[in-house]
């Protein structure tokens, strides 16, 4: 790719803005026909990108060179989303949910992707975080900002508890333990009276920041944005934080150790790796992410019930990780965003949602087990 720096920078920005406009147009499209048209366009672009090696390499090279700029432009564009969607709070709501699922998927990725531990108890840690902070907020008027830490901490403790039986078990047995734990939490939430039973907890207060309640419209630069924007910016910060943690962990010794356990547990043990400890660490971090997400969800919606934390939620998050590409931090986020937005766009077929999830997982595993964006092999500078 020739040209001087400015031209290349302009190219990067152009590609990103084009993609962003397409995305916004897709989100704003109301009719089913238009939606399907956009999806076909996206698939066409994806295939073109995949097949046309030269273009692929050129763009990849450009983005690699201008990493800083590309990230900054991307962040700026995401920050403008509430302004673009200001007339339709529903779209901002979808974005918030996508962010929540992205954090859940990032958390699960430490286990499913990095360590090859299939954990079907994501919904449980998600639920424990949500219930802990909701109960504290409703009964003791605890601030959201403290609750988010306590919720995450409680979920982490649960992760530790879950990790202990997993010291002894692996593969199917381990999955059975996580499924059993998830079901136990679900049954307890339904049956305890102090969690509100099947009716759940209503009227969870919204967080407030410097006197500004998150349930009130947000006024930014003279624009009146719907109240969902508050949560959009909050969740954006959290996703960025989660992304940073995930990225750093992946490129640290811990991430490398997890990968070693994934490749061959016995060989890893022979190298002197504390397999159990690192597995439990993955459990705890995953549960912490789940707990934080649950807290935000509880205070955002203002109402939680056991149904929000059923087994199926865990399966959906597992699907996101597999679809996006196991162990690839960015792929996982894309998987989460895709699997949140697409079902909402096809709300007319709401009933088919889970069926389609199941079919996607089975076909993905058969034809592209590495996911949409597979993790590349680690490369170290010589």
């Amino acid at each position, binding site marked *: 790719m020739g040209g001087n720096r400015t031209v290349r920078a302009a190219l990067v920005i152009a590609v990103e803005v084009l993609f962003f406009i397409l995305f916004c147009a897709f989100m704003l499209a109301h009719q089913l026909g238009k939606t399907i048209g956009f999806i076909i366009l996206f698939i066409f672009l994806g295939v073109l990108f995949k097949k046309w090696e030269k273009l692929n390499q050129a763009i990849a090279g450009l983005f690699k060179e201008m990493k800083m700029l590309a990230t900054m432009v991307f962040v700026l564009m995401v920050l403008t989303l509430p302004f673009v969607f200001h007339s339709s709070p529903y779209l901002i709501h979808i974005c918030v949910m996508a962010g929540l699922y992205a954090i859940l998927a990032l958390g699960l990725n430490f286990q499913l992707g990095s360590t090859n531990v299939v954990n079907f108890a994501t919904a449980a840690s998600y639920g424990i975080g949500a219930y802990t902070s909701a109960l504290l907020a409703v009964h003791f008027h605890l601030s959201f900002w403290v609750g988010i830490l306590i919720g995450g901490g409680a979920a982490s403790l649960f992760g530790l508890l879950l990790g202990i*039986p997993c010291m002894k*078990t692996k593969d199917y047995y381990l999955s059975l333990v996580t499924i059993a734990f998830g079901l136990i939490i679900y049954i307890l939430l339904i049956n305890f009276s102090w969690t509100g039973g099947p009716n759940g907890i209503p009227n969870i207060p919204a967080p407030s920041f410097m006197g500004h309640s998150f349930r009130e419209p947000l006024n930014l630069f003279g624009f009146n944005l719907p109240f969902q924007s508050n949560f959009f910016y909050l969740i954006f910060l959290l996703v960025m934080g989660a992304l940073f943690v995930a990225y750093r962990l992946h490129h640290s010794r811990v991430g490398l150790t997890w990968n070693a356990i994934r490749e061959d547990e*016995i060989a890893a043990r022979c190298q002197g790796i504390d397999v159990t400890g690192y597995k439990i660490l993955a459990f705890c971090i995953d549960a912490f992410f789940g707990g934080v997400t649950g807290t935000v969800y509880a205070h955002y919606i203002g109402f939680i019930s056991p149904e929000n934390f059923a087994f199926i939620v865990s*399966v959906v998050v597992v699907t996101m990780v597999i679809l996006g590409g196991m162990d690839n931090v960015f792929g996982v986020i894309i998987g989460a965003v895709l699997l949140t937005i697409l079902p909402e766009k096809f709300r007319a077929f709401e009933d088919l949602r*889970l069926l389609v*999830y199941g079919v996607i997982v089975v076909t993905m595993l058969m034809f592209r087990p590495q996911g949409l964006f597979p993790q590349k092999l680690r490369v170290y500078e010589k």
Partner: protein
Amino acid sequence: MIQQLINALLLGCTYTLIAIGFNLFFGALNVVHFSHGDVCILGAFVTLILYGLAKFLGILMIVPKFLYIPVMIILAMVVTGFIGVFFERVVIKPFRYAPLLMVLVATVALGIVIREAVRLSFPHGSNPQVFPRILPQKSFQWGGVLLRVDSLIIFGITLFLISMMFLFIKRTKMGAAIRAISQDGEAAMMMGINMDVTVATTFLIGSALGAVAGILIGAYNNIIRFDMGLMGGVKGFSAAVVGGLGNVYGAIIGGLILGLVETFAAAFVPGGTPYTDVFAFLVVIFFLIFRPSGIMGEKVYEKV
């Protein structure tokens, strides 16, 4: 007390029938078919369809009930058995040489597909469906214990099916082939055993037995719901693990233990009825920690 034992036995029967499937599949292919519970409940729904069909065609009027119902159950077993084989071919076989994780997630997803397909294809599918009263509803007193005739029949059917299956595995050529591939698939293939046919047979038997479990659950409670398969599958798998995965005898012991735990938790723990499943799972987790290979299972040593 005796009443509780009978209840435990009944519950154990259904768990055993489901667990046998898990053990057969694990023995044959070293896979856990997580959607097996859903296949079992599918058997109950197939019966529901057959019953409705018979009602619609007026067969119920002509043919006496004691003749029609066994035929219906056998038909449902066959249909479900072949559905099980179909799932093996489509979803499990492609992962024969893939990492364990793949087939695990794929079968969990398959379970969702089955559940949702059932829910969508029945009118008001999210609500419980009334299951026809195919077993006699009489009961009698015997030595101070109230016995329901249907529970006796359920017990009889289970006993009959399990002994038939053991005979099949011990005495027939196909049974020998199943035992051979569960010991060493590759060696069995070198001896001229047709792997595909043998695996298909195990899925046929396992799914057919599972269908009976589904039908019995439906007949005893007079109700079936599309999502019963999830719990049924996890319980059946738990029973298989407690007994020793891959060991068909273990399924019986595991099923009975789980049945006992649940019944006794409901009967003797004050306020324990809503928490029976919690007790069952705690027992399973306990077993997994202290005896991961189950009661009858052989200890596995890992090699690099």
